[in-house]
Each structure stands twice: as structure tokens, then as C-alpha cells.
């Protein structure tokens, strides 16, 4: 069924209709308008046509058509990322809206993996697994209601439970990818047709890793196999307050090194407390940084003991036990924590990775920028927060909110300096996209990027798959 009719002027319109039917292809500018941005303000080219495939066979046919006609193709997931990664860099691209491909393919309890189609959203999968008594490791980015699993692993997303399980790609065991030629490759132990999909590393080079973080440049992911774990019904929580960020960072690193938490957050700056968690520090005038820990275990005593250890770590650094309300709400409001912040205005983020020990340095630079641009006086609020990842690093979130359109120019000036500061102080973006690409290309070692380009050229000689991504210019 169609309401807004296709313009039917794209050169591949008829052939795409022949593959998926009229209802799932549209090149009308009104339809395209909704695919012109993701959740950030940056823009590239608008797609020429949008197609919604329902199966890997359809994806294969579409990709083969694009390969034959050397037409650009751009896979996209929930399109609520905040770096413009899903936006085409060349005109007239065929955009794949993958959200129809959302089936659970297999829950393999023997080997503790789940295989899903690429358009499955994190929230939906969490729900399905929960009904079976399982959980994922990494649970999805903060926009996990709409973010698809393939989209997240394609751009190295960070988010819930990264503290224990690392970033989105860490949970992947195997991928099914439609290559730019239209051929299909299955990675991990799926190379053996008779084997269960149970490990990423087996017998050959780790081909899975090539496609993780590829921003859609090397193929269209159609299925993913992820690690699962038994549900951990016993939770404990704790909020700790510190008089200065330096002490908080030391405690934060210690907690993280010991691998105590499922989720570990650090508020970096008191000035942003009300944006981060309204009212949190009203009763604690001496507190300038906080840590919020979420522990989930299969044993209650274990969960309680871990909280005790975290409390002890904090207290050794004169940290104050603030209770556990913020940590509990943070976890309960999964996938809905960021949205209320939009009330402060449209956000400009600087999300990137950095060692925990370099958080204070980042904040020093950021505060200088805030002062230089008089952000507070201009009604531009900000939040400074860090999410622990793996053993000793963080996803640092320093984000400003332009309250109205007329403040956007000023906010963007400050924001651009903030992005520079993040890189100059040793930050490495997790995703790239329009947000970071020019800056990362300036820094990247020639041999590194050249190896990627060699691989890209070998897999996609006609450069049809997400062309010009990782090439800069926007």
C-alpha cells in the first residue's frame, strides 16, 4: 500500500520495483526528506531512492543490480545515530532501509548465541531474550529503541553494559554479509556449514572484524550472531560522590579494572549535574563529580559484596556514599535517558573514547572552551559524562545543547573547538561519520588507511558500497 506515490524517476526505479514490489520502493522527495538526516544536525547528500528489503535474497538482488549498473548503495539501520554515518556522500544513492529485516533466526542455547536479522532493534531483542531467561552482553546504544544491531556494530557503538562487555562489536560471533558483488559471506565458525555458529575465531583470519566498524563500506550485513548470557536477576546499585574529578577518576579506574560492574558511569562536572540528572547534587554542595555503578549477578551475595567493594574503593578516596537512586533510575530508564535532554535544545555531541586517566585533562580543555564562548550566559547547557568501557577506558560524552535555532551558530563554533580538543588530548572517536571524519583523516597513519583502501578496493572495485565514506570532504 502506498499513499505518497513514487516519482518513479530514479534510473533504477523499475528494476527495484521488480525486486521488492512497488510498496517498498520510493523516490518521492517527500519520502526522501525523512531519510536526509540521522539524529545529528550534519547533512550530506540525500538518497536518490529508498528501498526496504524483507530478505537476504532481496538484498542480494538489489546489490547485484547496483553492481551491474555501478550505482551507489547505502545501507542504513534505525538512522538515529549521531554522527551522520548512514548518510550517502554521493548523489542519487540507493538507500537500504533495513528495519523490515527483524526476525529472530535462531536462539542456540547449546552454544549461547542468538542469530538475528540485521534490522532487529536492541530493545526488541533484549525483550525476546529476557522471555527466554537470557541477556545480551553489550545491550545497545542509548538510542537502542530504534537503533538496529547491524547499524550499531557497523559504527562501533557504545552504550549499556559496555563497562563489562565492551563496545557493540565485542558481542559479535558471526556475520552474514552481502558483498558488493552480491555474493554472500558468513564469518566465524559459520565457514563450516555443518558447524553451529559458536565462535568468531576459528581456523582462518578473523574476517568478522573486517566488517565491524566498516560504516557499511564493505557490504550489507544481513544476519548477526551475538553472544548471550544467563539473566542475572540480582542487582545492586551505588552512587558515589567526590570533591574533585581527579579522585573520582582514580576510583572510576579502580572499579573498572576489577571488572565489578555491568554499567559504570561517571559525571565529570558538577556544573552539568542538572542536565545530567536534575536535582542529583542539590543536597551535596561539596560534591563535584559522581560515579554510578550498576551490578548484576546470578547470586545475591555476590551482587551485594561487589557493592561493598565499590563503596570501599570510593571511601578510600574520600568518596561519599550518595545512595543508589541515580544508578537505579539510569538503569531502569534504559534507552530513554537521553530524550528528556532534548528539552534543553538540539544537541551537539563530542562522544569519543579515551583512557580514564585522561578524563580530567579533557574537562580542563572543555571548561576553557565553555568560558571562551560564554555558553552559560547564552543559555547553552552542557553535560559531561563518561561511560566506562572494557578495563581502563571510557566513552566520554561532552555534549552541548543549542536551545534555539539562533544559538546554533555560536554553539557550533564552540563545538568545533571541543572536537579538536577531544582529538588533541588523545581521544579516539568510536564512530566516525560526518562528525569526525575530517579530523580522523588528518591524524590517521598512511599505512593504516592505505590497508583499509586496499581491502575496500579488493572487495568493492567499482566502489558502489557507501562510496566516499572514510574519504572526508563533508
Amino acid at each position, binding site marked *: *500500500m502506498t*499513499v*505518497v*506515490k513514487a516519482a518513479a524517476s530514479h534510473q533504477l526505479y523499475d528494476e527495484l520495483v521488480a525486486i521488492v514490489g512497488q*510498496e*517498498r520502493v*520510493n523516490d*518521492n*522527495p*517527500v*519520502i526522501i*526528506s*525523512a*531519510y536526509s*538526516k*540521522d*539524529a545529528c544536525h550534519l547533512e550530506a547528500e540525500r538518497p536518490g531512492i*529508498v528501498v*526496504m528489503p524483507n530478505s537476504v535474497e532481496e538484498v542480494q538482488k538489489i546489490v547485484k543490480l547496483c553492481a551491474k549498473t555501478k550505482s551507489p548503495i547505502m545501507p542504513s539501520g*534505525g*538512522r*538515529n545515530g549521531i554522527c551522520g554515518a548512514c548518510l550517502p556522500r554521493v548523489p542519487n544513492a540507493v538507500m537500504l*532501509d533495513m*528495519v*523490515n529485516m527483524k526476525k529472530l533466526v535462531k536462539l542456540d542455547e547449546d552454544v549461547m548465541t542468538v542469530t538475528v536479522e540485521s534490522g532487529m*532493534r536492541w*530493545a*526488541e531483542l*533484549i*525483550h525476546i531474550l529476557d522471555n527466554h531467561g537470557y541477556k545480551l552482553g553489550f545491550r545497545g546504544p542509548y538510542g*537502542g*529503541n*530504534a*537503533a538496529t544491531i547491524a547499524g550499531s556494530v557497523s559504527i562501533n557503538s557504545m552504550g549499556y553494559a559496555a563497562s563489562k562487555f565492551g563496545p557493540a562489536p565485542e558481542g559479535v560471533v558471526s556475520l552474514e554479509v552481502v558483498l558488493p558483488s552480491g555474493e554472500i559471506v558468513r564469518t566465524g565458525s559459520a565457514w563450516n556449514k555443518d558447524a553451529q555458529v559458536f565462535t568468531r575465531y576459528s581456523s582462518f583470519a578473523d574476517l568478522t572484524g573486517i566488517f565491524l566498524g566498516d560504516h557499511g563500506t564493505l557490504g550489507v550485513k544481513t544476519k548477526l550472531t551475538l553472544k548471550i548470557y544467563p539473566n542475572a536477576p540480582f542487582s545492586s546499585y551505588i552512587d558515589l560522590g567526590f570533591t574533585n574529578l581527579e579522585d573520582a577518576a582514580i576510583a572510576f579506574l579502580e572499579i573498572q579494572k576489577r571488572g565489578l560492574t555491568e554499567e559504570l558511569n561517571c559525571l565529570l562536572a558538577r556544573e552539568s549535574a542538572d542536565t545530567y*540528572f*536534575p*536535582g*542529583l547534587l*542539590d*543536597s551535596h554542595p561539596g560534591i563535584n563529580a559522581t560515579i554510578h555503578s550498576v551490578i548484576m549477578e546470578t547470586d545475591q551475595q555476590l551482587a551485594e559484596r561487589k557493592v561493598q567493594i565499590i563503596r570501599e574503593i570510593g571511601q578510600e578516596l574520600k568518596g561519599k556514599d*550518595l*545512595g543508589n*537512586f*541515580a544508578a*537505579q*533510575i539510569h538503569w*531502569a*530508564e*534504559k*534507552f*530513554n535517558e*537521553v*530524550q*528528556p535532554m*532534548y*528539552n534543553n*535544545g*538540539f*544537541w551537539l555531541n563530542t562522544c569519543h573514547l579515551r583512557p580514564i586517566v585522561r578524563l580530567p585533562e579533557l574537562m580542563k580543555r572543555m571548561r576553557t572552551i565553555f568560558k571562551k564562548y560564554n555558553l552559560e550566559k547564552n543559555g547553552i547547557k552542557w553535560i559531561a559524562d563518561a561511560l566506562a568501557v572494557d578495563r581502563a577506558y571510557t566513552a566520554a560524552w561532552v555534549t552541548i545543547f543549542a536551545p*534555539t535555532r539562533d544559538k546554533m551558530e555560536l554553539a557550533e563554533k564552540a563545538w568545533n573547538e571541543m572536537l579538536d580538543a577531544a582529538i588533541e588530548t588523545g581521544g579516539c572517536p568510536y564512530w566516525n561519520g560526518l562528525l569526525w571524519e575530517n579530523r580522523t583523516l588528518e591524524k590517521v597513519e598512511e599505512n593504516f588507511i592505505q590497508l583499509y583502501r586496499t581491502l575496500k578496493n579488493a572487495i568493492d572495485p567499482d566502489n558502489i558500497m557507501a562510496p566516499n565514506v572514510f574519504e572526508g570532504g563533508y
Partner: protein
Amino acid sequence: MAKVNFPNLEPFKDELWLCGRCGDCSLADKIVASDRGVNHPCGVKNVLGFETYSAKGRIMVINDILDGNLEINQDIVDLAYACNICKNCQETCMATADGIRIPDMMEALRKDLVANGFSVQKHEEIENSIINEFNPYKETKDFRLKVFGDREFPEKAEVVYFTGCTSSYREKEIAVTTVELLSKIGINYTVLPDERCCGSILLRLGREKIFGDLTKHNIESIKRTGAKMVVTACAGCYRTWKIDVIEAGYKYDFQVLHITEFLDELISKGVASFELEDRLRVTYHDPCHLGRHSEVYEAPRRVIESIGNVELVEMTTNKRYAHCCGSGGGLKGTYGDLANEVAGNRIREAEETGAEFLLTACPFCFRGLKDGARHIGSDIKVLDLPTFLLDTKISKSMKRVKEEPLKLKFMEYLANHPMIFDGLKKGAIIEYEIEDSRFHIEVTGKREIIANPQRADNPDVELMFSPAAVTTLVTFDSEDKYAEQFGKFFKEPTDLEWIRFNLRLNIVKLLMKGYRKFAQKAGLI
């Protein structure tokens, strides 16, 4: 490109800016957000697929329109009218305290399109029919009362049954059964001899020019009956009277109730009770105009739950996040096939409950769902609530619900300690649950509260208590000690004594209602 003005849409520019394009209005799943039952909110997007049909997509299109990036043409008109105005997207949205008002924006866009000469012929016909015949169906105005046959109505009465055009001319069964029900219960009521369309459909379609005339006429007509109460079984008419008429600046001194609210009152006063002979499982579809638009969720449920031998089972989406039936916002009249698909999806949800009957409380929903069931070949029986009730055994015996003593004790304690709620703004509502027993506290003024033994329609927060926690809490004389122990039960729960809660509103709205102080007093922050 021809110059097109958008005086109605332009004022939303600042609000449009606040959309962060998170995509919840399109793809959010039920697990998230403190158990809020969101599940792929946009019924239209769920059928048509492309993101453009969701609120996020529509906001991007509107921004493109206002920025001059899109030409106004029939495609924009098509998109504008392919929306149920059901408000599920706004209810889901957390970007602002009340959610981004996409239904209002769609109506504003429709007004601007009409003003700029972009018209849908069917809509013109509806408007002309209302101008000439005071109903949208091109039916003769003099035949409006024909639905009631030879039944005669008094000139004066305590209650006016405002029938509405759809019940008068199309879903006549609802009009007939409603008056029979009112008569059977013994209500002193009448109907207006010269009722006119309430104007709802005109507002929804962006054609408001005669809305004022219709309203003035109907108010005068009601006044002539001397009634102090108007009851309607149409959710569309109800919303119009409760919201649109007031917003348009008209005043009236009679009370407006939906039939479900009216029956709920009668049941609670012991004036009427209903019973079926055999056990039956039913589910209930919330009409958008009654539920999300007017926040009446519990009255119809209380009525259904009061019927002897009836078990009410909820659909996956219900109350605030109930999927639309597809008939709202002029969608059914404009895109009938699409409306049937939306309704078909809703019917599938109803079938999943295993209910034999799908009840609703609106002629539009009734018709839409019946068509939806036919469209997908479902056997589920769709009925409007008054029609369903008429087939039950009606009597006057009060069905007394035996209240749990602990609930009553807790209610009494809270009512005697209003300082617990100090700082909360008027209108704040907290739902309390002890095991399966519920009540709510409404803040009615500074340090003034009402403890209501019923479930709240749209609480801000739900608090769940273990019985042992309540038993301890009600022993404290001092509100401060209560608050301290309250916080302790939350932070350091034991198997026996615990408190949990769900935030039902987003944190911005909660702060506006004064919950910061409440949380601080409890030592939570």
C-alpha cells in the same frame, strides 16, 4: 515555486527544533522506559513502512516545508492526511515535557494547506454537508432523530444524551442501545431536537470556519433543556466538548461526561449493576479521543470489570500507548484501505488476548474495528460498550468491593499526613499499589491532597509497596521519619520490606510537577 504561507505551522518552529530524531515515535519497543507499554506507536507507519509516515519523518518533512526545501504539492497533502492524529507518537515522545505535539502540527499543516487552496474533494463535500445538513454524511438534517423511531423525548431533562452524527446516521445501533440503556436504568434524560455536528471532523481536517456556529447552536440547544449534564457515547464528540470547545473560547455551565464515565458513576452509587449469565473474556480498545486526548482510561475498565462473569484482559498496547483503530483524524474517509489495514493490526492484537469480544466506546472505533475484523477475516466480535451492557442482566444492586484493610489504612494515613506531598504541584498524581490493590493520591492544592480508592487514569509515578513496608510506614507520626524510611526501603530493600517505582512521565515533566523536593525529602537524591 509558488509562495505558500504557513501561519498555523510557523508557531511550532521552536518545538520542531527540539526533536532529536531518536526514532522512538517510530520504532520504540515495549520493553523500554520503565515498563511504559510503548510498542511501535505509529499505526500508519506500521502499515506503510517508510520512516516518513512516523512522527520523526513528518517533523523532517515539516522542517523541509518551512525551510523551503520541499515544494507544496499533492504529495504533501497526501502525507498530511495519512495520519490518525491519534497522539500515540506524542505520548511516546520524551523530548519535551508533554511530548512534541505532532498531532497539533498535522492539524496546523492541514489548516494551512486548506487556506492555500490545497484541497481534498471528499473533505470539501464533508464540509459542505455539515454547512447544509449539519452532519458530514450528506443526510437530511430533519431525519436526525429518525434513528430513535417513535420514541419521544421530553423538552426538559436532567441529562442530555448528545448522540453525535455517526451514531445518528451510520452506527445507529449505538444510539438506539444507549437510549434503551439509559431508559432501562431510569435516567431522566432527553436528546436535542435540533442537535448539530459537534465539528470534530472539521477541526481534524483543518476546516474550522463554521466550528463556532455549530458550537454556539449546540450550547444554546442544551441550555434550553435545562440539563446540567451532557452524556455522549462518541469519543470524538467528547473530546470536542471537553477540549476543542473550551480552547476555542466557548463556555458552558453543564458537565460533559462520556457514557463510560456516567455509567461508572451510576455503578459506584449503586444505581445500576450488570451481570452476564455465562463467563466471558473480553478485551477493551481505548478510543484515542477518549484515552490519550482526554485521559479517560479507567472508567470504561471499571465498568467492564464490574460486570458479573466478565473477565477483562488487556491487549499488548493499551491505555496511553494503545494503537489506534485507524478511523481517527479523517483517515478512514480519506484512505479507507489504509484505515482497514491499521484496524486489522489492532484486531490481531485483540485476537492475541484470546478474548471473545472486543469492546470499545466510540462509534468510529466500533465501525473501524468491525471493518478491520472483516478485512483480515477475524471472528472476534466487536461491540460498543453500551450495546454490550444492554444484553446483560441489569439491576440496581450495588456490587460492593471489599477493600483491603491495609490499603484503607495506608490511604487514611496519607490523607492525614499531606506534608508528605509538600512541594508537589496541584494536579500531581501518584498511584499506590500494595500487592494487587491500588489507589491514588491527587494533589489538589498547597499541602492539600485527596486519597482516591481507584486507579488513576494517568499517574505521574507508580509506587509499589510490600505489605510489610506499608505496615511499618504507617506507624510514623512524623512525615520526615516516614520519608526517611521510605527512602531506605527503596535504597536498601529486603525480601520483606521494599518499595519499587515506575516513572510514568518523563523527568522534565516530573520536575515541573515538583517531584525533585519529594525525592529529596525521601533521601533519594
